[in-house]
């Protein structure tokens, strides 16, 4: 077929111009990210403040919402004891001289009569001041009457809590699953996008005082942008270079370390909490905060949206085609790179939403996402690698296991129990709950 020569050249130069503008857009996007990070980072101000005052550990002791005064907390360093007593508002602060790991002990004898540490809470806690100048410690209290709930009531409470956690995990797990399905990458930096979403939502809504809805939308947009940037800067070039999937997995580990410590530097190591809003709803023994109720509804809507997107829309169908067989998809005219780009942005946005909902309910710090990363991998693997719906089912199972396990195990073992379930399932059914046998190697 005859192709006019000049037309090809126009095409090529257009292509070149196109890639130049694309590079420009990427640079611009990085500039926006950095200006946000540097311009409005509360950690920078805090860090300078802390540098002049040394190191401190602090917290608030309260029982059933009421501050508890007169509780003595202490830590020792090189034989010297540092002490603090809670004031009328339940606050305590121990100033310490240097960056190391401290063990803070709550003197149980100074607690008011009838008040004890919550079950499973140790009176001595470790706090790491090597990576930040100040850190918070929580010693949750619970009146003795608190534990007198019947087993079935406790079961219901944990069931709802597990469902809630599972729904949040499902959003992020679908993100991992979609990326794995289309590119084969087990993305270890995915958890850090959860922290990213949560911390930016905190920055906008708490530190800068924006309305929560606006803060959430902007944070989701930023997470989506971060996802697109990751794909454009790291993963697309590596795919072009035909770097193997295990090599890419280790690259993602390196990237997650970089990502995580950047978050630490900009946001500091303390745990950020969002102000509680709205009232609680009571259903028999189960009390749900309005935040959790909203979160569960939002998650359910988002999951239904993802399911509709994947099964009804052209792009969704194309995504599943690429997951199934990229070469075959490409030969039927699907632009595989475009689909992967869309998947990255879409997955990152979902993960950002998951991060915000997680942070609103369970607080967040720079390690939040990394801590739940293995739960996400467990969800994806449980459901069957590469099936988005499977990831959601897996996440619900993991969420339920995490919460229900605390009925029989100490609470500090609940993550471990979820990972044990993962190992057991792989032993019995390596393809996962919904996975097809041909998917495993």
């Amino acid at each position, binding site marked *: 077929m005859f192709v006019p020569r000049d037309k090809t050249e126009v095409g090529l130069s257009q292509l070149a111009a196109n890639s130049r503008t694309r590079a420009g857009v990427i640079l611009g996007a990085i500039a926006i990210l950095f200006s946000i990070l540097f311009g409005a980072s509360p950690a920078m101000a805090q860090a300078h403040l802390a540098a002049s005052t040394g190191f401190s550990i602090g917290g608030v002791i309260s029982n059933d919402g009421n501050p508890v005064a007169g509780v003595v907390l202490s830590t020792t360093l090189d034989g010297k004891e540092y002490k603090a007593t809670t004031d009328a508002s339940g606050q305590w602060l121990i100033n310490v001289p240097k960056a190391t790991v401290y063990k803070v002990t709550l003197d149980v004898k100074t607690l008011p009569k009838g008040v004890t540490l919550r079950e499973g809470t140790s009176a001595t806690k470790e706090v790491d001041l090597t990576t930040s100048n100040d850190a918070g410690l929580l010693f949750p209290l619970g009146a003795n009457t608190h534990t007198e709930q019947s087993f079935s009531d406790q079961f219901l409470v944990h069931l709802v809590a597990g469902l809630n956690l599972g729904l949040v995990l499902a959003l992020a797990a679908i993100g991992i699953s979609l990326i794995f399905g289309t590119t084969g990458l087990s993305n270890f930096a995915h958890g850090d996008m959860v922290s990213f979403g949560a911390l930016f939502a905190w920055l906008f809504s708490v530190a800068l005082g924006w309305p929560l809805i606006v803060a959430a939308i902007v944070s989701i947009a930023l997470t989506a942008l971060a996802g697109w940037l990751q794909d454009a800067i790291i993963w697309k070039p590596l795919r072009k270079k035909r770097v193997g999937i295990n090599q890419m997995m*280790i690259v993602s580990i390196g990237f997650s370390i970089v990502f995580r410590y950047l978050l630490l*530097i900009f946001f500091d190591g303390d745990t950020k909490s969002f102000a509680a809003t709205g009232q609680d709803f009571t259903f028999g023994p189960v009390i749900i905060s309005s935040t959790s109720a909203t979160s569960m509804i939002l998650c359910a809507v988002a999951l239904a949206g993802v399911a509709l997107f994947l099964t009804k829309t052209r792009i969704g169908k194309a995504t599943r085609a690429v997951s199934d067989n990229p070469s075959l998809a490409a030969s039927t005219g699907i632009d595989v790179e475009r689909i992967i780009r869309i998947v990255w942005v879409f997955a990152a946005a979902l993960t950002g939403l998951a991060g915000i909902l997680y942070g609103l309910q369970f607080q967040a710090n720079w390690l939040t996402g990394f801590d739940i990363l*293995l739960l996400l991998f467990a969800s994806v693997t449980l459901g069957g690698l590469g099936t988005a719906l499977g990831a959601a089912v897996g996440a619900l199972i993991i969420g339920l296991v995490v919460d229900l396990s605390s009925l029989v195990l100490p609470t*500090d073992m609940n993550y471990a129990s979820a990972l044990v379930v993962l190992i057991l399932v792989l032993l019995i059914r390596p393809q996962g709950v919904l996975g097809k046998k041909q998917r495993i190697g």
Partner: protein
Amino acid sequence: MDWNSIFGLSAGELIGASTAAYVLCALGLSMHFGYTGLLNFGQAAFAAIGGYGFSIAHLTLGLSLFPSVGFGLLCSAIFAVLLGIPTLRLRADYLAIVTIAAAQVFKFTVATSGLSWLTGGADGLAGFTDEFYALNPIPDGDINLGVVSLTNRQVWVALVGWVLVALAATLIFFLLRSPWGRVLKGIREDEDAVRALGKNVFSFKMQALVLGGLMASLGGMIFVITSSTIQPATWGTNFTFMIWTVLLLGGAATILGPIVGGMIFFVLLMFTQNLLAGLVEIGWLPFLTISQVGQIRFIFIGLALMLLVIFRPQGIFGNKKETFFNV
């Protein structure tokens, strides 16, 4: 800025016992990943089990030094078998996720308050080094090595550490030249071909997993003796990824790679940290605080890991033909 102290501390890392401990773990990982192709992301658990087995045997069971070491190694071998049975039949990326999960489960388990009578919970254990130092033949007093001065205890534990490194490296050297080692390399390159030759691939993988795990456990013991305490927080995923960086820096399928990689890695880490801290002190880096310097070095580790894997997956000493990430 105190250049003497910066160079002294960096040089100390070159021969330090903790470097030897990491190198032992990296040698173990080279057995797993470099020669057999197993993507083991749970090396921290093997090191932790060595350390916990050793200290619990000494403190709770009341065993003396060498039986304690033996107990630690036994625990490590049992863990390797338990981990291997479900995972060694899995595809490489599943193996990676399951091993990292198993390592986290171990970490959570030793940290749980219900087991603090045995493991010390989150506080960990201490006071298990007396017998080790009682064997110290080096007379009291500091030993001056030019830029760096070490106490006789530090020299003793470093000496033991590096002797173990030498033994492990020699063992790997001879094993890899035996028919057994050739089967391992065969598994790395083409598992099905080895299976077709009638070899029991699963059994060979298991032997490599156990052997590499034992080396990591020895490393873990050296590590806890150097720091004279053992705490669950040490054995997180960062520990594993540091070992991976050391291994990939030197070259995964080489004998010298993990050793020289470990030396270079820790010297550079110490040097950059002290240099940055020095620059912050004299006010050249006004946007950083001293505590952030410790954080920045992790960014360096992450970047190093990414760049190494992308641009030089065979490491410094490696042969490009011997890097098989996709097995």
